[in-house]
């Protein structure tokens, strides 16, 4: 029984960040326990489920069972319905996260990690100023469990960091209040991502239509916390669905929050590492968090395993992880953050004008870089950011 065993690392949260951290730590020969508060790994799915093929291939060959649609085109729709279509250079997938998250957890288990569901963590144990384990409830029974390192992968609602004195609260302007419905009975192009950008539909965010096989799609939106005082996210989504898909039927509805922020300044402390949404590692412009969570999970797992072997769980040693993350993701996210701040403040008229300018470029010559260069024309400082983040996309 896990409560009687000794673990080197406890991972709080069994999403992509937690499972990946557990997988790579276990691979490096340390004992890992994953505690998931819900009854199921990966459920409920709070996600648009889009990933890039390239991103996924860093970790494994994509399994056809995970993939509901393969995407090669993008459609951007402006406030007055100017439609900009273009081809993607790289492919994207819409996943079935129920299957995907199970498999990520299984990969961790096959490396030797132990995974438990319905295990709710509600506090940390300390040795002096060093995190030394967790306390919580399992099937309503309290437990305390010590470990050398705790990895907080507890999502946007993370409290693990706060308990250790880290500042993880999400600022309202950077928080996207999201609702998504998986709908059917509609016509969709199975190979295309659709995005609607408009203050009227989703101020401070956007609407996505991600096809999930034939006649089915994840349709959702995010509204910035800055703009949701007048109307809640689900009202915005219902208005859009009534307008664009009046005959839809709903298979599932989920709410969610996406921290569209730069990575937190401090993501490690003595005996603790934060990873994924809890460390604000979502790409702040797209809101995509699966691949960043997995990339950081890999680094966190490897760093934690090395720290255990070196018997050094202090902040100084663990900060290798922050530096590595900054190089492979954090730095780019700062650029995306600047772009997001500009794009989300454009008026509907400006968005229409950008769409009109882009439509003058022949369809086969349109690229994401060219589109964004038009969008930031009035902010020359951002041109370098655009060329950097979209290089190769």
């Amino acid at each position, binding site marked *: 029984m896990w409560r009687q065993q000794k673990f080197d690392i406890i991972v709080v949260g069994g999403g992509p960040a937690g499972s990946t951290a557990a997988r790579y730590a276990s691979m490096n020969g340390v004992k890992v326990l994953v505690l998931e508060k819900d009854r199921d790994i990966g459920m409920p799915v709070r996600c648009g489920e889009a990933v890039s093929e390239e991103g996924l291939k860093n970790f494994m060959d994509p399994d056809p069972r995970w993939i509901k649609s393969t995407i090669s085109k993008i459609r951007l729709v402006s406030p007055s319905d100017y439609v900009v279509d273009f081809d993607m250079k790289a492919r994207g997938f819409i996943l079935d996260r129920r299957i995907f998250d199970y498999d990520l957890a299984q990969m961790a288990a096959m490396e030797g990690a132990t995974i438990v569901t319905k295990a709710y963590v509600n506090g940390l144990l300390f040795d002096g100023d060093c995190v030394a384990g967790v306390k919580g409830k399992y099937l309503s029974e309290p437990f305390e469990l010590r470990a050398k390192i705790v990895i907080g992968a507890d999502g946007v609602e993370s409290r693990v960091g706060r308990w250790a004195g880290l500042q993880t609260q999400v600022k309202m302007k950077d*928080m996207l209040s999201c609702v998504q419905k998986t709908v059917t009975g509609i016509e969709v192009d199975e190979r295309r991502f659709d995005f609607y950008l408009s203050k009227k539909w989703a101020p401070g965010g956007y609407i996505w239509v991600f096809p999930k096989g034939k006649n089915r799609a994840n349709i959702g939106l995010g509204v910035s*916390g800055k703009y949701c005082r007048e109307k809640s996210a689900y009202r915005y989504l219902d208005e859009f669905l009534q307008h664009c898909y009046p005959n839809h039927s709903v298979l599932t509805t*989920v709410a969610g929050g996406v921290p569209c922020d730069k990575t937190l300044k401090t993501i490690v402390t003595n005996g603790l590492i934060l990873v994924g949404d809890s460390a604000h590692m979502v790409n702040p412009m797209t809101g995509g968090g699966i691949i960043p969570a997995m990339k950081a999970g890999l680094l966190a797992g490897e760093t934690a395993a090395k720290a255990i072997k070196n018997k050094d769980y202090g902040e100084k040693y663990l900060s290798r992880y922050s530096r590595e993350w900054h190089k492979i993701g954090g730095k780019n996210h700062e650029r995306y953050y600047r772009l997001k701040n500009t794009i989300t403040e454009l008026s509907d008229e400006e968005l229409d004008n950008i769409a009109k300018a882009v439509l003058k470029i022949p369809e086969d010559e349109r690229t994401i870089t060219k589109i964004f260069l038009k969008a930031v024309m009035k902010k020359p400082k951002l041109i370098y950011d655009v060329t950097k983040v979209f290089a190769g996309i």
Partner: protein
Amino acid sequence: MIKIIQYKCDFCGSCVAVCPEDCIEMEEATLTIDQELCIDCELCVFICPFEVLEYVETAEV
């Protein structure tokens, strides 16, 4: 104070993420607010995608 309409809640955790006082607790399917710590800032009310939380005068409860 902030009132929770439990049956509307989807347990997405958005309210927990924006709470400046860390006074909201979310287990698998229960949401609770520590009224002692709550400062009635209403950030949770605004960010909630489903209008689960609402501000009420204490007398009404």
